[in-house]
């Protein structure tokens, strides 16, 4: 029996993980809206209850995930192949988890404020402007310039997203401002922080997304409670907090577990691809948001808000769906990974550090056997591979020969 991470290739994971996250996100956003409208119409009380019930239920999930299966494997490995045990974050990992939790506090708080006054299907598209912020940040990093295809795909997705948002002209400008400002900025900081946490190594293994979610959510609950205490602990909010029924507790736990699984797949996806690409694929949430709002509206009229799909609005929505779908599938086909076998002259060990500075090389190893370095290359177009190999490696003295092994199919423990 193959290990769970071998079931899917890297490219399929690149699309599938954000798509699963998108589906789960659309589900929990609609559930939040329903719970806020009918059960706890106080966003401060709802934020507090959701976060803490989410944290408690996640601790329960972790206890299930550490169940050992045969041959030293754990149930949690099916959620994230890097999962082994509950870890106590320290050093750099703890730093990024704290940053993610603080950004998460602002993001969570503004999110509940937004959906308490707006229809999620109409407001979700504006949260996708975060992709633009991420592209700008990634472009500022010298090693990570986006390719033309990536820029085209992202523009396609964003245009599709805003076409879909054109279905309602009665936007609340303050809500849009909150989405474009604090919500998106905290979302960007959160994304960078969890990605950096996921890239860290803990006891020889990459940190798993389940542990990251556990610690980020726990600290997020703590920070939100402390920072927003004056809003949360009012007589009205305390009334809601102390009068929870078992059914309501169950509904909120289901809601938060959905959010947890959405977060775990999102964090895993961030280890596979660039932040802007993951969030572009996640734009599928916008399509699902409209579908779920329509289904929900049939079950509980008005419970999820309404969407205008008649005439020109219907056309715009359909065009938006096509553009987002095409953009997502284009973006998924651009990544290139490979290995460079760099044969060295005698006494050329100093080259290790020089080669490491070349863009696109993520790992370099001096190995036993022959006088050779093995470099792992992760780039997003073959054109960039040419620049790496021809224009940069060839300049280095002491290299005898380079063999390029381009990966055509790949399974990776991510």
């Amino acid at each position, binding site marked *: 029996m193959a290990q769970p991470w071998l079931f899917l290739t890297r490219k399929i994971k690149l699309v599938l993980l954000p798509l699963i996250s998108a589906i789960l996100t659309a589900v929990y956003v609609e559930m939040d809206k329903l719970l806020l409208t009918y059960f706890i119409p106080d966003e401060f009380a709802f934020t507090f209850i959701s976060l803490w019930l989410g944290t408690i239920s996640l601790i329960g999930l972790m206890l299930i995930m550490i169940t050992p299966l045969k041959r030293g494997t754990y149930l949690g490995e099916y959620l994230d192949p890097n999962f082994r045990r509950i870890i106590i974050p320290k050093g750099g990992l703890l730093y990024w988890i704290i940053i993610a939790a603080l950004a998460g506090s602002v993001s969570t708080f503004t999110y509940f404020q937004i959906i308490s006054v707006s229809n999620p299907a109409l407001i979700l598209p504006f949260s996708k402007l975060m992709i633009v912020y991420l592209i700008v940040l990634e472009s500022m990093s010298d*090693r990570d310039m986006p390719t033309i295809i990536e820029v085209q795909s992202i523009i396609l997705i964003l245009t599709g997203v805003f076409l879909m948002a054109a279905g309602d002209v009665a936007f609340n400008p303050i809500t849009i401002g909150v989405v474009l400002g604090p919500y998106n900025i905290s979302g960007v900081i959160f994304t960078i922080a969890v990605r950096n946490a996921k*890239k860290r190594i803990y006891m020889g293994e990459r940190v798993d997304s389940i542990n990251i979610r556990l610690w980020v959510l726990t600290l997020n609950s703590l920070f939100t409670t402390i920072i927003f205490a004056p809003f949360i602990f009012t007589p009205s909010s305390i009334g809601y907090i102390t009068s929870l029924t078992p059914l309501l507790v169950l509904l909120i736990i289901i809601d938060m577990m959905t959010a947890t699984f959405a977060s775990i797949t999102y964090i895993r996806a961030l280890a596979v691809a660039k932040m802007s690409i993951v969030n572009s694929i996640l734009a599928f949430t916008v399509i699902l948001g409209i579908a779920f709002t329509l289904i929900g509206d049939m079950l509980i009229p008005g419970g999820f808000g309404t969407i205008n799909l008649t005439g020109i609005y219907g056309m715009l929505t359909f065009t938006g769906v096509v553009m987002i779908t095409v953009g997502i599938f284009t973006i998924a086909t651009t990544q290139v990974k490979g290995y460079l076998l760099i044969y060295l002259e005698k006494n050329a060990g100093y080259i290790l550090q020089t080669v490491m500075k070349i863009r696109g090389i993520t790992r370099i190893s001096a190995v036993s056997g022959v006088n050779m370095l093995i470099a792992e290359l992760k780039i997003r177009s073959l054109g960039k591979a040419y620049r790496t190999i021809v224009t940069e490696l060839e300049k280095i003295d002491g290299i005898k020969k380079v*063999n390029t092994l381009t990966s055509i199919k*790949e399974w990776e423990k991510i």
Partner: protein
Amino acid sequence: MIKAYIMLNLSLGNTKKILEEIKKLEYIDSISVVTGPVDVVLTVSVNRLEELYNLTYEKLSSIQGINNISTYIVEKEMLSEEEQE
């Protein structure tokens, strides 16, 4: 933790079957089917050299269709800023 790259040359027509066999083995971190002088690159992590010996000389060697196995143990490794601990 000992890391190594294992490069395999396969006989034509058996790639899919060989990959299915490789997927069942322990200690493997990634499997890449590549173009160039070798056909498959494996990255592996083991705790002891004996585990690497078992993997290469006992498990991989017994898979029909693998013509050549080259093992390169990592003596020194550098990660890009993004991948660093």
